[in-house]
């Protein structure tokens, strides 16, 4: 019953929620990021990070350091925390945590299929996959020639199987189709996740529907911005938008009809929650759109922790952790390439 979850939530979820909040206390703060942005070399970064929760993971990385090693170790920490939680959890939180990985699974599938298309070695691609999205038989993806085979050989046994019904065609895989496949899968995944959260009910349903609505609308804007000027038709574009969210259905019709970035801005400015995003960008500037959206997302994710006794803290924690890894990657790359002035362009502070 909404409002009374406090009475029974802690039976199954109390311990894990407390652990998740403990992890959240270990996220890097503005002070940490300022320290990191003043580092001269990658070894300095490693030294700064030993004062944070990453200490045990970075202790054994051999010098000379590489940016990919730092990012890999930070991702290992994320995976360890995820597995720790997943091993102690019961329904429905276990299904909820599994839903968090499906996005990465979709990314991994697309990575391997694209890489195979461009004749890269399977093992190299497997190493670049995100560890949270691995599943058995992922290596078999390299063998598939078209989507039906992809589905029949590999994906039918994975949790992504139900998302495939909308994109089964007999066409061969090429770059355009793979991007369409990625977006169609992700759309189905978001809708499924949304329905699942609604079925849990209570505070989880309310908070998660807000967060997923934001993500769906963000994706709609991204799809629109990326597909102006390409050969994607309006109807195809329309089919890639999710069936929920603030922009559904009228915003989607308008977005499908826009032809340039300012048109997108005109559509989105009719929706007050997203006006803050576009207010930061002056006319015609689309490079900072990603960063503006990331900042908006981080702001919403940190607000989720204000309420207790729901599952959205897990979603928020993992998204914030991923944002932190992206920040660390940007800082490490800037430092490695001697571009320290550009550090603050690419990172989004959490608190």
């Amino acid at each position: 019953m909404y409002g009374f979850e406090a009475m029974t939530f802690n039976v199954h979820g109390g311990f894990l929620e407390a652990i998740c909040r403990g992890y959240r206390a270990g996220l890097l703060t503005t002070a940490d990021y300022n320290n990191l942005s003043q580092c001269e070399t990658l070894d300095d970064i490693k030294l700064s990070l030993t004062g944070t929760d990453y200490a045990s993971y970075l202790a054994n990385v051999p010098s000379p350091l590489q940016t990919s090693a730092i990012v890999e170790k930070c991702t290992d920490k994320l995976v360890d925390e995820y597995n720790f939680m997943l091993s102690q959890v019961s329904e429905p939180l276990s299904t909820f945590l599994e839903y968090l990985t499906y996005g990465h699974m979709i990314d991994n599938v697309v990575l391997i299929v694209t890489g195979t298309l461009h004749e890269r070695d399977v093992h190299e691609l497997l190493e670049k996959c995100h560890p949270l999205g691995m599943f058995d038989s992922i290596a078999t993806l390299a063998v598939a020639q078209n989507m039906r085979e992809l589905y029949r050989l590999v994906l039918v046994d994975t949790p992504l199987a139900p998302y495939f019904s909308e994109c089964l065609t007999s066409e061969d895989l090429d770059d355009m189709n793979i991007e369409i496949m990625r977006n169609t899968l992700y759309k189905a995944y978001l809708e499924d996740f949304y329905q699942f959260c609604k079925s849990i009910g209570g505070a989880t349903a309310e908070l998660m529907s807000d967060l997923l609505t934001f993500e769906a609308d963000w994706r709609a804007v991204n799809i629109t911005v990326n597909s102006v000027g390409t050969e994607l038709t309006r109807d195809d574009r329309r089919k890639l938008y999710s069936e929920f969210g603030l922009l559904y259905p009228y915003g989607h019709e308008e977005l499908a009809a826009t032809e340039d970035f300012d048109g997108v801005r005109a559509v989105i400015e009719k929706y007050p929650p997203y006006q803050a995003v576009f207010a930061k960008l002056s006319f015609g500037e689309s490079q900072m759109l990603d960063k503006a959206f990331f900042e908006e997302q981080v702001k919403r994710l940190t607000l989720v922790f204000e309420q207790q006794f729901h599952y959205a803290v897990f979603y928020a924690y993992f998204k914030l952790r991923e944002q932190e890894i992206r920040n660390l990657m940007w800082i490490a790359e800037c430092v490695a390439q001697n571009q320290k002035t550009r550090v603050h362009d690419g990172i989004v502070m959490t608190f």
Partner: protein
Amino acid sequence: MALSDASSWLHALLYISPYSFSALGIALSIGVSVLGASWGIYITGSSLIGAAIKAPRITSKNLISVIFCEAVAIYGVIVAIILQTKLESVKSSQQHFPESMRAGYALFASGIIVGFANLVCGLCVGIIGSSCALSDAQNSTLFVKILVIEIFGSALGLFGVIVGIIMSAQASWPSAHI
């Protein structure tokens, strides 16, 4: 008495022995209080254990929340003991006199008052204790302020105990000399 004019349901209700009402009251006072206390303790305890993994310093201070919940169970035990000392036997001819019925109802009501007041008090203190543990883990200055809220919450159980004891004090069974 106009019992012969009353419906059969009223008849049945009025013929329930005052001993059953009293015994039920005593059972409710301890049983439901312990339900409230245990509910509160598990709510606080699970959050406390999880939060203490990252912030071990909170464990000793936050046991106060558990102690407040436990106090609720103790109130229930005390009132149950007081109530059972009030339960006396009367002669079977006097069993349905108005004084006996009154005493039976008084003990029953006292049990319900104490039981349910302690149930919600235990729940309240437990939920606040859980939030207290999680906030203390993030920011240790918050502990004392949230403790004040818990103190107000545990006063609710005390109100129930006071009224319950007053109710039971006036439960006087008819003496054998009448």
